[in-house]
């Protein structure tokens, strides 16, 4: 019997069936942050429960901390950070806090520490946990009640998803990045188009990506509603497993972590790699995007049916008019960071654009490396000098920062941000803030031009 990679992963982790149709699945590794875990720990306290396997969890501080300095931005943030540290100390859980050389955004830290590996099941109280699919691991986000559940039982209640394969065949054009590939997938399938599905990415355009690109693709798969994103483990994956603190400490060899030839998916979608251009979001949902060479759509032009519904509301919020050339949109702020695009590879791509250039007058430009280790590596490669010479603020601490603006990096009402992040929701980067999603190289180009611009004109 042939099986998909997803089904192999679920089968390998099934503990038992439950009478109501759910199953219990085993969680190999669980990550926590400071804002979605406090109520899980207090739940344990109230119920008099202990953590079943403390060594199988890692806690990092990333969402609320300031990235300007190691100091918490305010008393509430300090409360969350201190609460996580004391919960970890009490339950004997590994804690990578502020000032720890291993600290950073959870989904940057985990691969960097060698804690993601093919065949694992990884859960975290954060929707972008789909990132670990890049390793042929089943990763997905959970709520706080489920964080409590996994702490106490090392399992989760689960029901099998439907399967979708998205094949991207053919080479992508120069200047087109992994970010553009996943933004194209989100545009085609629509926000919520993969609700209830586990999505496997296949095809030569995916195979040709290095791990950083594969992580960007799987990371943003949640924006189409995918509860899991997967890429089969191959030589690229194997090569990425060595050289980290946890390398060789564990492995999962019960299966080949790829879909059997001939295994059927509930849905199959194909996208031609050659058709993908650098994309920009114009609206307030990640599927509202057009090529950088395009114009802001009107209700008459082609957009996906789901995107069409919110078009007028989105244009009002974004302060744009239908038919306006995308490259006429001026920006106030450029932000490079987030679990989607703040790896060393992303910083190199942006630095390649900025080398020998300066950002436009009046633009605020910020780069927040995804982890302390990423920052150190970037500094050793001379990237900091390139960013600073161009006029970017180089942040000394790592975190989510302006991706969701839970710290003090909040965009103002009406402020327009070119952003390498994952969500352009209303209010995401601050109340009334206007977010345009794009690749990190495109953010760098926009900072230089002071407006949205085609990175391919910068080579």
């Amino acid at each position, binding site marked *: 019997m042939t099986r998909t990679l997803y089904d192999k992963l679920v089968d390998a982790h099934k503990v038992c069936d439950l009478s109501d149709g759910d199953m219990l699945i085993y969680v190999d590794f669980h990550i926590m942050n400071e804002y979605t875990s406090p109520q899980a720990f207090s739940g344990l306290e109230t119920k008099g429960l202990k953590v079943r396997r403390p060594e199988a969890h890692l806690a990092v501080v990333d969402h609320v901390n300031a990235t300007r300095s190691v100091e918490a931005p305010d008393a509430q943030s300090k409360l969350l950070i201190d609460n996580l540290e004391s919960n970890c100390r009490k339950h004997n859980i590994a804690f990578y806090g502020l000032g720890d050389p291993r600290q950073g955004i959870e989904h940057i830290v985990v691969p960097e520490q060698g804690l993601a590996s093919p065949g694992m099941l990884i859960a975290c109280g954060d929707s972008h946990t789909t990132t670990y699919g890049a390793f042929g691991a089943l990763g997905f986000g959970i709520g706080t009640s489920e964080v409590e559940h996994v702490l106490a039982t090392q399992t989760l209640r689960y029901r099998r998803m439907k399967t979708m394969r998205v094949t991207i065949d053919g080479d992508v054009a120069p200047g087109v990045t992994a970010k553009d590939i996943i933004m194209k997938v989100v545009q085609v399938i629509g926000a919520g188009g993969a609700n209830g599905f586990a999505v496997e990415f296949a095809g030569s355009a995916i195979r040709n990506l290095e791990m950083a690109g594969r992580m960007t693709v799987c990371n943003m798969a949640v924006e189409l509603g995918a509860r899991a994103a997967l890429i089969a483990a191959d030589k690229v994956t194997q090569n990425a497993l060595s050289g980290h*603190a946890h390398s060789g400490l564990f492995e999962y060899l019960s299966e080949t972590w790829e879909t059997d030839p001939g295994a059927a998916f509930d849905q199959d979608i194909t996208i031609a790699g050659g058709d993908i251009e650098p994309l920009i979001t114009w609206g307030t949902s990640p599927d509202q995007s057009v090529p950088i060479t395009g114009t802001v759509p009107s209700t008459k032009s082609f957009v996906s049916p789901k995107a069409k519904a919110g078009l007028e509301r989105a244009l009002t919020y974004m302060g744009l008019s239908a038919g306006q050339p995308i490259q006429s949109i001026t920006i106030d702020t450029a932000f490079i960071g987030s679990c989607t695009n703040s790896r060393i590879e992303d910083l190199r791509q942006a630095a390649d654009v900025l080398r020998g250039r300066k950002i436009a007058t009046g633009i605020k430009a910020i780069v927040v490396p995804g982890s302390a280790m990423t920052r150190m590596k970037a500094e050793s490669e001379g990237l900091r000098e390139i960013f600073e010479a161009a006029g970017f603020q180089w942040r000394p601490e790592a975190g989510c920062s302006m991706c969701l603006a839970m710290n003090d990096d909040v965009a103002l009402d009406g402020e327009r941000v070119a952003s390498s992040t994952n969500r352009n929701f209303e209010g995401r980067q601050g109340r009334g803030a206007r977010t345009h999603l794009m690749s990190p190289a495109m953010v760098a180009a926009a900072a230089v031009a002071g407006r949205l611009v085609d990175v391919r004109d910068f080579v």
Partner: protein
Amino acid sequence: MRKTIKGIAAPLPLANVDTDVIMPKRFLRTITREGLAAGTFADLRFYNDNSLRQDFVLNQEPWKAANILVVGDNFGCGSSREHAVWGLRQMGIEAIIGTSFAGIFFDNARKNGLALPIITSEKRDLLLKLSRNGKIFSVSVENKIVDIDGQEVHFMMDDATQTALLEGRDDTLDSLKKSEAIDAFENSMSLKEKVSVIK
């Protein structure tokens, strides 16, 4: 939870209402589950100076008293924050009727006794119309039917979710009853399959 949820239903037809909109980030900096009613839909309910936005349905009569929402596609997308569900429950919402919900939001709702009846878009459009007329909805989780003045609309809800809502059980305590199965699974794992994070 109550087997039947009865009350005013408010129409919220926007697609892709995300959890950032349901619970803006400034309300997330808390270590408790309480006090989140004030944050629910805050940017839609209030202007910057905290005055009420009359253009938002939950600020208008008769929907101020709504305990049911009829919503657009892909409700609850985005961040995993369970605070969104806690806030909705604390402002008195007991059921949200729609065509599709984001996965994590769906699971969070179930854990907190928030019913999410799923219907087709045609039925949703009908319910939107009826909710705009201020009709009283009666949502039977037991029978999977919404009743509006005798007009019955059947909805979908998987068995495990229905059971969870009707029983209102604590999943953590319930799953701990399966400790033997978890022990057996762990005993079947090789040593190499057990993660141990370096502290």
